[in-house]
């Protein structure tokens, strides 16, 4: 079943969703970048290709409080103040970020389940949006992702005059039903003619994708070449000017490494987890030293993980979705595409 609504009524649709549950959508911030913000009356959907930070923040926030402890003499009290989350909806998620949820699920939902992640995931409805204007840094196609059919619980398309919605899951259909129940005139069911228009829009997007400079980039299955690639001499060149910052990691929708730390406010100790980066020199540091002595080893770890280790552990699925954020944000423009190209040369 597919529904439609005139573009000029998009605000009405957003308001109707927000009346059902908390709604987050990409809006432009003061620095001119798109960020997910909670919808309020008048909030405008960003026209940007994608959000600066990925949608992983909803399920795996940068800082996550875990538990509180109180120490008194020899006693320790554990305060598990986890709260059940409310339902919420993320609107306008691109196909690449939708795939990133699968990548994260494989880690956080694997036994033993991460209950913080799981709770947020259960309560979220993902409304995706087809990319109308992909950029030159996009290469989701490389990983078999279709930017024109973005997936999620409801997938959408925006054309010049019409906005189309297609629920894909029970959760998505339930939201659509709730919207219709609340306002019978909001969504119109699409007929065959309109569905053909969506198909046409999909084809239009596919034609654009074909023109992208990275369209022909191939992701090779390198699971069998783990040791050979690990030992490649190319890592030294590739990493030689890496600053060792965490910009790539933190904007990446699939990077999920975290640290666990305590914050002592004098009364209670708050244990929290926060994003961490394998690019940082202290990431694997122990009292006895670190197995990754230089930036070369740290750099290699990040890309080997995305292109070899993760696929090895998860049936060939890559831990990269081709969103292109690292291509845009690396201060020295050293990125996964350059790594993939270089490793390919190595083979030739």
């Amino acid at each position, binding site marked *: 079943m597919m529904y439609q609504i005139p573009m000029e009524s998009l605000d009405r649709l957003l308001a109707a969703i927000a009346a059902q549950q908390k709604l987050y959508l990409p809006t432009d*911030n003061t620095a001119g*970048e798109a960020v997910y913000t909670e919808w309020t009356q008048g909030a405008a959907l960003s026209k940007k290709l994608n959000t600066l930070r990925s949608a992983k923040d909803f399920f795996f926030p940068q800082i996550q409080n875990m538990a509180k402890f109180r120490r008194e003499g020899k006693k320790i009290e554990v305060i598990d103040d986890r709260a059940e989350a409310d339902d919420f909806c993320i609107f306008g998620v691109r196909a690449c970020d939708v795939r990133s949820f699968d990548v994260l699920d494989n880690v956080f939902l694997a036994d033993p389940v991460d209950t913080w992640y799981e709770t947020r995931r259960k309560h979220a409805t993902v409304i995706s949006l087809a990319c109308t204007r992909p950029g030159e840094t996009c290469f989701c196609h490389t990983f078999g992702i279709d930017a024109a059919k973005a997936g999620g619980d409801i997938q959408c398309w925006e054309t010049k005059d019409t906005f189309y919605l297609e629920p894909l899951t029970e959760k998505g259909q339930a939201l659509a039903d709730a919207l219709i129940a609340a306002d019978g005139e909001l969504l119109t069911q699409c007929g065959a003619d309109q569905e053909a228009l969506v198909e046409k829009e999909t084809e239009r997007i596919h034609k654009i994708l074909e023109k992208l*400079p990275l369209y022909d980039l191939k992701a090779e299955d390198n699971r069998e070449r783990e040791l050979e690639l690990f030992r490649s001499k190319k890592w030294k060149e590739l990493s030689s000017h890496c600053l*060792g*910052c965490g910009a790539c990691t933190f904007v990446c929708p699939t990077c999920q490494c975290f640290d666990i730390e305590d914050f002592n406010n004098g009364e209670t100790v708050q244990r*929290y987890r926060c994003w961490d980066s394998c690019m*940082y020199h202290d990431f694997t540091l122990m009292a006895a030293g670190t197995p990754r002595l230089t930036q070369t080893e740290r750099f290699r770890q990040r890309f080997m993980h995305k292109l070899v280790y993760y696929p090895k552990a998860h049936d060939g699925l890559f831990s990269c979705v081709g969103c292109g954020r690292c291509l*845009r944000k690396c201060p020295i423009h050293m*990125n996964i595409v350059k790594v993939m190209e270089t490793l390919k040369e190595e083979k030739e």
Partner: protein
Amino acid sequence: MQNELKWRGLELLKDGAVDRILGWRAGQFVYDITPDVFTDPEDLEKNFIYNEFCGANLSKYLIAESAKEGKVAVFLKPCDTYSFNQLCTEHRIHRENVYVIGIECYGKVSVDALRQRGIDGITGIRSEMGSLKIDTIYGEESVPAMEVYAERCRNCKSKKHVVFDELIGADGEVVDDCDRFDMVEKLEQMSAQERFEFWRGELSRCIRCNACRNVCPACSCEKCVFDNPKSGVLNKAAADNFEENMFHIIRAYHVAGRCTDCGECSRVCPEHIPLHLLNRKFIKDYNELYGDFVAGESVGQMSPVADFTTDRDAEPSVVQKGGDQ
């Protein structure tokens, strides 16, 4: 200009005058340029690039490069030469191992500024008579280059090289009317509350990626206090927003008097936080309190707060007291 730089680099490598060239390596697109070292003339010929996107300041890389055996030639834009001098003052660079090629610069373009104008799907960019012609998969765009220069270039403080062993192109002058303190003045005129809100707003976007610190030529500590788990201010431990804010303010204090206003911090910030304004506030205060002072103007000069004198110190009594004891 790219050809001149490349030709000179090739000559130096082939002559054996230097062992390595520190420059810029071409990427996938016209703008995704990586600082890199070239040792092979053929590699240099093929992959060296110099264009309006070569914004990266190469001076900091010389800390590592100049410590290696042999001689390295480096291309420095006028603003980069200030960082170079400052690092020499701090004994971070082995000057004898470096051959500095100053290069003329009119300003560098920020690709983010293009994107903020809605330009995406970029496949090529050409410079034509002060404007940029941008090819995209959605058609051609044209933008006056000045409008998409990085902030630091729009307010360029100096087109003069404060150090070079040779120069490609002409040397310029210090730009006295660069207006680089305009925004600082605006902030100074705000009420404390307004200013606090301005910074909380800007800094609330910080993701603690440390790109600003790692790229900064003045941040050359071998181990940063924010990387030390025992310091209690671990870099990732942004337990609340206030702590996050303090990171940048502490860093600004630490580089005060040594920051040359090269603007790399703001260039690399993925969240576009105008970090350079913190440093500029210090520079402006220094100028007002101690007389004009430009970090990196020459090698060996002392920062006013590290060089106490009775005649220009804001608090001569303090210096006097110390002297009497």
